[in-house]
């Protein structure tokens, strides 16, 4: 892997981390909105939508942090 590849990978990881935080936060807000629903179908919809957002956001954060850690350990070696 050359220097440009490493810089690009690091950039992608940082971007993914930022996006992940943003999406996960919105997922939490949608989950909080469950308190305002009136029917069970509405509650279920908010719950599923919120959990999907949290999972996507959390997944992006996890993948990006793992990628950054991996690059750092490769650099140390």
């Amino acid at each position, binding site marked *: 892997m050359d220097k440009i590849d490493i810089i690009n990978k690091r950039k992608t990881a940082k*971007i993914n981390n930022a996006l992940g935080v943003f999406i996960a936060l919105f997922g939490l807000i*949608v989950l909080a909105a469950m308190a305002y629903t009136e029917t069970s179908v509405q509650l279920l919809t908010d719950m599923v*939508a919120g959990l999907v957002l949290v999972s996507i956001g959390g997944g992006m954060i996890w993948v990006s942090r793992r990628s950054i850690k991996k690059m750092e350990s490769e650099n140390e070696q």
Partner: protein
Amino acid sequence: MLSGIDYFIVIAYIIGMLLLGLYFKKFVNSSEDYFLGGKSLPFWAIGMSIVVSDIGALDFVGVSGQAYRYGVSVGNFDWVGSVPAMLLAAFIFIPYFWRGGMYTIPEYLGRRYNKSVRTIASVTWILFFALDLGVLFWASAVLLNVLMGWPIWISILSTAGVVGLYTYFGGITAVIMTDVVQMIIMFIGGFALVFLGLHAVGGWENMVEKISTMGPEYQSHFDIIQPSDTKSPFPWTGILFGLTFVMANAYMIGNQSIVQRCLTAKNEWHAKASMIFGSALKMFIPILVLFPGLMAVVVHPDLADGDQALPMMIKSILPPGLVGLMFAAFFAGLMSSVDSLLNSTATLFTKDIYQPFIKKDADDKHYLKVGQITTLVLLIFGVATSPISSDFPGIYVAIQTFMSYFQGPLFAILLLGIFWKRTTQWGGLSALVIGIAFAVFLNVFKEHFFHIEDPFLYISWWSFLVGFVINVVVSLMTKKHSEDDLKGLVFSSKILTKNKSL
């Protein structure tokens, strides 16, 4: 007006978008970073961004409205009207643009034909994008005014402030990455809407039965192929010739704001994959935008304006939280259209006008500054011209119609430019000029030539055909380019293999 949690979500979304966009400032150090994201972005982000910029908030509302009025035939725009063109772009055109290190489509036209073709194409795009800006600012302001109760001018200035700041500082990386967030939210909100909508109308079969028995005007609501004498704007002849053969290809291959995204890819594989991934996502769009329009026929059968179908469905069907999220995604859709126009116009101006005509050999930082200043000037122009939209309500349609004049001839010269070595600079130039003039002529005298109300699909087909024929005839009469001139610009079967030498 929105209330409580939904209001909070829209505000949080706007502030979050601003912060997220500003975060990308740290990745901009050169003009390549600003216009092409440093050629480092992954295919999935670009693919999502292509889909989002293609289906902006205005189209989201418009397509649902057309589904409400005309039925499923409008879905053709996202299936045959997008997917084949995106695959053609991915495998044939994008590799040439990417390998050529190009920034703009007119830049390719300039290399393949001549400087005049490049300038005409570039100026036309700049005019179109700049005029569109005011319309989009106004649409965003109206949305904020209706949802949040903010005065129109506060709404315009806050939209311009948010979009302007992150586009000015973050360039195309900010544009693409904010699109990713918007697409994820739009898909989740859209599927929730379809799920709850189907629940409300008693399932798909029940909905079909109810709509089919609502009267003769609903008889062909579920016919994806409409007869050639239909009164809707989507006869199969127009869909096949105007949309599938011309407009879709012109849009996916010749539209700066679409192609520029692919050119930000980290390598050629990612550039191609972004289009293919985008085409896969596009197949879901009709489900997200058509179905709510159809369901609204059952849930809200007496809407005066079909364009109210989607907002009404969101308000009446979605639970608190998702209502705010969907409206925030709408607003973000408008912001995404604005930021795409800002960045693409700045790229066109800097690379096709400023660099060749005003200051040729300046250093890279200078062109980065020019791009940023152009973004700022466009922002001010967009804000200043936005009230025109309220004085002339048909202006958006007029701008889109103007664009359809350009699409046919543009695609004709792009197609021949890639696939026919014999086409010459004079062939290309005359095809572009005469083709656009012919499209204007057809539009002015449309009552004499066409029997449908809005024959834009037919106009784009005939102007394409005229541009194509003119290009062939004039090229055969003029001096052809040498093999060296055409290196890397015309089709070679090697483009389909891993061989990077053309």
